[in-house]
């Protein structure tokens, strides 16, 4: 009972906050709603007993990525932005696409089958602590995908440096 109540709260608030994020005219306000949204997502992770993921969600998304968003927003010319009537012009098309997606997802929900239970039950993870369990998996079983992901990030960093340097030279 209490669990359903908690989940319902998070689900509805997250949807409401996402709507607020995309409908605000002032990007500064959007960022603040998004901050609240990230906290609710972290709360949802906590609710799933994933405390490590919740902490990382706050540190990485709320603490780092959103601050970078904030930088971009701070350097915009807000007076012009707020004067714009709406940012996306073709909303009927978007609405149509979303409706199709919604129908597809709803249809797919009927085919939901619960997967087999793996070795990592809540008790096992609580014994071993999250950071350890995740670290072991990442550095043994999923080492290759993990390294590929870090390589992709490295490419992005190198790309940013190259772009910045080219501008300096010219």
């Amino acid at each position, binding site marked *: 009972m209490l669990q359903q109540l908690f989940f319902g709260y998070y689900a509805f608030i997250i949807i409401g906050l996402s709507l607020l994020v995309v409908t605000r005219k002032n990007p500064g*306000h959007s960022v*603040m709603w998004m*901050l609240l949204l990230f906290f609710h997502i972290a709360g949802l992770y906590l609710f799933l007993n994933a405390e490590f993921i919740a902490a990382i969600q*706050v*540190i990485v998304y*709320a603490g780092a990525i959103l*601050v970078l968003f904030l930088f971009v927003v*701070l350097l915009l010319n807000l007076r012009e932005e707020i004067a714009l009537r709406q940012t996306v012009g073709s909303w009927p098309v978007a609405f149509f696409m979303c409706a199709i997606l919604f129908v597809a997802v709803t249809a797919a929900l009927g085919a939901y089958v619960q997967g087999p239970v793996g070795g990592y039950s809540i008790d096992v993870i609580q014994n071993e602590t*999250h950071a350890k369990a995740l670290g072991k998996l990442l550095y043994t079983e999923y080492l290759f995908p993990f390294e590929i992901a870090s390589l992709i990030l490295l490419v992005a960093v190198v790309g940013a440096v190259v772009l910045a340097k080219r501008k300096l030279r010219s």
Partner: protein
Amino acid sequence: MIGSVTSFLASFIGEPMANMVLNIVIILIKVVVVIAVTLLHVAYATYWERKVIGHMQLRLGPREVGPYGLFQPFADGIKLFFKEDIIPANSDKPIFYLAPVIFFVSALTSLSVLPFFDGGWVSNINVGLLFLLGMSSIGAYGIVMSGWSSGSKYSFLGGLRSASQVISYEIAMGLSLVGVMIMAGTLNLTEIVKAQYNYPTGFYALPQILGFFVFYVAMFAETNRLPFDLPEAESELVAGYFTEYSGFRFALFFLGEYTGMLIMSSIGTLCFLGGWTLPKFVMDALPFLGSLPKFVWVAVFLVKVYFFMFLFYWVRATLPRYRYDQLMNIGWKVLIPLALVNIMITGTLKIMGWV
């Protein structure tokens, strides 16, 4: 007594509900006690800072209000509380109201995971250290948004400077704590303290000397204190991000800054100086210490925390402010590589089984 209260409640709403209500009440009492005690410490941290810096500059510091000026913090608080609350005309009002609250609340939330002595915590979570890092990054929003929403050039520049400074030094600070995590093998603050107690030296400041140095420098930048207080450099930016704030909203920034200093000092104490414990060889030499009640050890914790606070004041009275490019160079070109080297050394030693 708690048992009788539970059974009394249980007769109305049933056993499980009664236990839950009682737990929530106990947590609330703990929260109120921790916040009240911390705010008193904050009040006297300001008094002590003025005394220390006064004596370092051959002055006497506050003396007028009460004996030795002991009531000065309360006089300051009452003055701030009754000042006019001015809101600039071209400010973004909702965010202008919200920013100091975010700053202060994020500082107070960090208190909930700090263990002050064995058993003296509001909550003992397994990701305590990560929680602290997360909360310190939320505090940056208070600063950035206050600078942005004030609608003033000085505030805006202060907010921008603070954002880039806090983000840069957060990396160094997080990486400097990784060495401690590797050595203790856990992110739980209580476990980290216990691991240090069982370590031969009794604290990690010695084997983690590189990490300790990086943490110590990053601590100043994270709390916007001298020599890294560029966001509020008064000779260039009036007062930086809180230029437009007055009265109690300014007081929230002020309290938040000192709470932040206390929290950074606590993290340093817990991760590098052994928290509330004395080293094991001291305890073995003086066996009667083991029979003392647990809450007495909060005194040891406080002595270590105030040692860090004294360093904050000492550095403020000694060093001039850095230039902004120097600040960034120190952060990215010195501290982060040092922290990475520290991680590599600690990791290698851990694999070899030497630590």
